[in-house]
């Protein structure tokens, strides 16, 4: 039997296979995650599946401390990474695993991957981050909503009227300029997600498109989990060619935005 977690045994947690499904939607801020989670939840419920949704920073245990720390910006990188792991562990044990045991589908709006990527770009080693989250339950499906930084930028501005301090990685001091920092930060994150794609078996979905198109791709990926035949995929467009170093590309984007 496949390990239920990524390697670390959780004391007091079930060892038998659970009947529920764990579906994770990952992607940057502005990739359309929340929209897709809402559409997917409705669709699954209409299909007759019980759905429990979850996300980051939703446990009662430490959410106040995380918020406080973000206001004060005073925590070290390791401390912050561990604080997020407490929040995640609490939800995993008290919400995700019980729901899976009860046979529900758990729909996670981001999971350990975002937490790992954030910790790594702030100086944690990939090895450390992987081991730290070794206790996480293996999802049945991880969908990564992949959107270009320019698209994320425009959606972020439409949503907040500006760029978010944390989503621009301003705490990393990559640049004093919010725009430039945003592109540099998103670029660092996407490098981590790229590495995780193979390691954790992400299914990438082109999220530069309108929600309906994204959703129909997601449905095609999710349907087989419930024994339904996967509808045929439309032909894939060829990927855009890539040139230049990442940093110079990110700087060009910042300059042209």
């Amino acid at each position, binding site marked *: 039997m496949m390990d239920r977690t990524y390697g*670390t*045994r*959780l*004391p*007091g947690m079930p060892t038998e296979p659970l009947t529920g499904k764990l579906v994770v939607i990952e992607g940057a801020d502005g990739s359309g995650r929340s929209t897709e989670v809402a559409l997917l939840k409705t669709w699954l419920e209409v299909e007759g599946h019980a759905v429990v949704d979850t996300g980051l920073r939703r446990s*009662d*245990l*430490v959410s106040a*401390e995380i918020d406080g*720390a973000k206001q004060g910006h005073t*925590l*070290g*990188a*390791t*401390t912050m990474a*561990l*604080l997020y*792991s*407490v929040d995640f*562990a*609490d939800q995993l*044990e*008290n919400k995700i695993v019980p729901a899976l045991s009860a046979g529900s589908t758990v729909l996670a709006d981001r999971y350990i991957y975002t937490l790992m990527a954030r910790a790594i770009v702030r100086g944690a*080693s990939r*090895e*450390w981050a992987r*081991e*730290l989250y*070794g*206790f996480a339950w293996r999802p049945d499906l991880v969908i990564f909503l992949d959107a270009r930084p320019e698209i994320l930028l425009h959606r972020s501005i439409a949503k907040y009227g500006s760029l978010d301090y944390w989503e621009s990685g301003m705490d990393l001091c990559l640049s004093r300029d919010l725009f430039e920092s945003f592109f540099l930060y998103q670029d660092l994150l996407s490098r981590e997600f790229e590495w995780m794609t193979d390691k954790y078996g992400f299914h990438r979905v082109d999220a530069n498109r309108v929600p309906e198109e994204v959703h129909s791709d997601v449905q095609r990926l999710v349907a087989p989990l419930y024994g339904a035949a996967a509808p045929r995929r439309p032909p894939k467009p060829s990927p855009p060619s890539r040139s230049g170093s990442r940093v110079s590309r990110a700087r060009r984007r910042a300059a042209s935005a």
Partner: protein
Amino acid sequence: MAEPLSTSHGYPGRLLVFEGLDGSGKSTQASLLGKWLQAQGYRVFFTEWNSSDLVSSVIRRGKKKGLLTPTTFSLLHATDFADRFERRILPPLRAGYLVVCDRYAYTAFVRDAARGCDPNWVRTIYSFAPQPDRVFYFRVPVEVTLKRKIASRLKINYYEAGMDLGLSEDLYESYERFQTRLQKEYDRLAETDRLTIVDSTRPVEAIQKELRANLKPLIENFPTGARLMHDG
């Protein structure tokens, strides 16, 4: 996998750690040692387990509500330690001072192992913490710690007795069983991590004398606070 605490810090300061069961006398010894070091002109920084403001309230709240599992308990303490490490231990160590820690990562290793967490996982989490220059393990029979607690009318708390593990309904019995488990883990660490075992059944003075003698070579030629702050 990362080999935790196998690397020395390489900073100009010195990191001294006091470990042992509650009631083993380590805090008394740490405090006396600090007085001696300060009297010689050294600047000493003290830190204690569970002392960071950040999560101590969460730990209290979680303990009170019984919300904590071995995993969240372990991660919360790691968060607390990381905050203490990044803020209170690392800066003075890098600046060249003496840092005395009443408990360090070893406390997590023994407690989390006793609660059933994967020991390799716990070690990896703490791998950001370097190996101290000295780790004194104050060893004393569990019965003695219990007697000291009762004599000083200290209350035994729920987690100290390992009541969350359901070892026994009786607080005292649970305390003895849990602390015995912790001691076994400490004894194991004493070998793998080369802790300096201090027989803590002896009089306070005798132990203090031994500690001072042990530390003498480590702090020879070590700069005093005044020398760090002024030229000449």
